[in-house]
């Protein structure tokens, strides 16, 4: 048997390789595409309208970005773990409706109602995760069923109890004032109000990014999404990881539903409907692979930022807002194509 080993690389050659790998590493960051996209969009809208980069303007587009961003973080974690959640959007509605009905209709203490509502959201997440891991069916189908059921429940139960399709009057609920500073405070910066949900968004993103890259759970998330069989073979509790990820989506849906309810003091039965796809769009723009095992929480947050900027920027730029969905679709297509190129690059055998 003869084994030919490659000759040891010379120092000069090694240096060159190191330089290439630095560029490579930068390009391989999953969030790089979304970062460039966000910068381009910001410059574009800033040229079209000076209001866009005024403090008031920034506050305006951070507003939708933050709510979508919180959900995008959870959905991105789930996608990296190899699954979808189509019920995430309507679950934000369920969270708000549950709290609103329990307080305004049944007179429950608002803090207790919030906890019960959180338990419901975690329960829905658990049910999703349990069914997916137990049956081995695609999460797409399981959560599609959950999405339809929740949509029906939101409407039917609300109508059954209140007789209408919305629940309001949160402002008159006892102890509402004790909840408001946490979920609906405004922070004044140079005379412009910024909503506290932006802080929540940043906190959720920071925790998500830290968990993903620096904890065992994050490692397991990547592994479960990348190759569930291999993960199980080396002792990763893949089922527990999946269920926890679904419950994280539930927790974030509760947070977003609560932020909206407390700020607006009312909630519609249709709330959150259709938003589940936007979370997925944000996660994909942020570099998450649809097949799992690869992606970034920060990227997903930037994806939500892109969504917020486009949403408001079109208005600032004086364009017809009917074009918004077209832009969103085009950006999604671009992001997916870019991701595919990056993935091939990442999986190349040669360096």
């Amino acid at each position, binding site marked *: *048997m003869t*084994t030919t080993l490659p000759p040891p690389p010379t120092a000069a050659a090694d240096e060159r390789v190191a330089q290439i790998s630095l560029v490579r590493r930068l390009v391989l960051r999953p969030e790089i595409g979304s970062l460039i996209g966000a910068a381009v969009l910001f410059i574009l809208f800033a040229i079209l309208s000076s209001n866009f980069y005024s403090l008031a303007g920034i506050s305006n587009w951070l507003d939708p970005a933050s709510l979508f961003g919180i959900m995008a973080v959870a959905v991105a974690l789930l996608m990296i773990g190899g699954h979808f959640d189509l019920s995430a959007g309507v679950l934000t509605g369920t969270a708000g409706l549950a709290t609103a009905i329990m307080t305004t209709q049944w007179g429950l203490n608002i803090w207790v109602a919030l906890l019960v509502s959180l338990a419901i959201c975690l329960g829905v997440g658990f049910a999703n995760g349990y069914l997916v891991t137990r049956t081995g069916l695609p999460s797409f189908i399981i959560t599609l069923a959950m999405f339809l059921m929740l949509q029906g429940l939101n409407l039917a139960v609300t109508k059954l109890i209140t007789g209408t399709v919305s629940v309001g009057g949160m402002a008159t609920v006892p102890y509402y004032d004790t909840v408001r500073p946490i979920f609906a405070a405004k922070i004044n910066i140079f005379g412009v109000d910024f909503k506290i949900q932006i802080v929540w968004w940043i906190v959720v993103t920071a925790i998500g990014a830290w968990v993903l890259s620096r904890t065992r759970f*994050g*490692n397991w998330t990547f*592994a479960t999404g990348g*190759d569930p069989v*291999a993960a199980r073979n080396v002792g990763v509790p893949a089922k527990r990881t999946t269920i926890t990820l679904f419950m994280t989506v539930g927790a974030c849906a509760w947070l977003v539903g609560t932020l909206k309810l407390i700020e607006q003091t009312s909630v519609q039965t249709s709330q959150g409907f259709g938003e589940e796809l936007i979370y997925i769009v944000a996660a994909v723009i942020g570099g998450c692979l649809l097949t799992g095992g*690869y992606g970034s929480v920060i990227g997903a947050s930037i994806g939500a930022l892109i969504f917020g900027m486009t949403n408001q920027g079109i208005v600032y730029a004086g364009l017809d807002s009917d074009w918004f969905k077209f832009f969103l679709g085009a950006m999604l297509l671009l992001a997916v194509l870019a991701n595919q190129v990056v993935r091939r690059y*990442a999986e190349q*055998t040669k360096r």
Partner: protein
Amino acid sequence: MSAPPLLEIERVSKFFGSVIALQDISTKVEAAAVTCVLGDNGAGKSTLIKIFSGVHQHDAGEFRVEGEPVRLSSPREALDRGIATVYQDLAVVRLMPVWRNFFLGSEITKGKGPFARLDVEAMRKITKSELLAMGIDLRDVDQPIGTLSGGERQCVAIARAVYFGAKVLILDEPTAALGVKQAGVVLKYIIQARERGLGVVFITHNPHHAYPVGDRFMLLKRGRSLGDFAKDEITREELTALMAGGAELEELSHELERGGGAAAAAAHELEAVGAQLGASAAEEHLGLSGEGQEK
């Protein structure tokens, strides 16, 4: 009297219902030695390693780990006794960095409770030094493991098993899916593992891979042992001939000759190839897969 072998089986049998998967198999695995298990498809190689690794339990005979008779009830128990199995799929996640794969499922953490975090620096350093000890010099343990070659991935899996306390390493056809050069690299790491004092069980159907690295050879055929030889008891030619099953090969070439024309030409070619390479390689060459009998 020297220490008992790490693993030893004596007249072990395994039945699946009425099917005799293994009958009266005996061999042993010593520390710092490579035991090769050779056999064609359906010979019972995978059943044997599943008994070693705790997936199956033997039905008759005796299985001793370091002299102590055992029945391993689960892969976990086998691992706890230091028996690690590297399966063909290697259990690696292609898109994850090498160091994350190395420690997957057994991550090192620092800090307590909810603040427990990965000790990234330590894991990077250990991965690099453990791979270096196996003779793999990676510039960057952060590269996705999918960027490594098949042979290198195999070696990461081996190094991982060694680091996590394996005393016996069971390698399930590690060279089967590899080209000549890559297979050579893996054979080198098998020797490396042996030199670090491990007992290695090397499963293969290729006598040319087994002979250079093996200290002991056990041949399986249709669930029975064709013999268990120390290296000085058998030559490469004898091993190849045993693997080839001379009589059967002859029968095959007769059958092909009766077919006439192209089949006869193939039969001649088969004889020539068989003489050169040993029959098992020739059978593969023609896409014939032994008895094809699987439990």
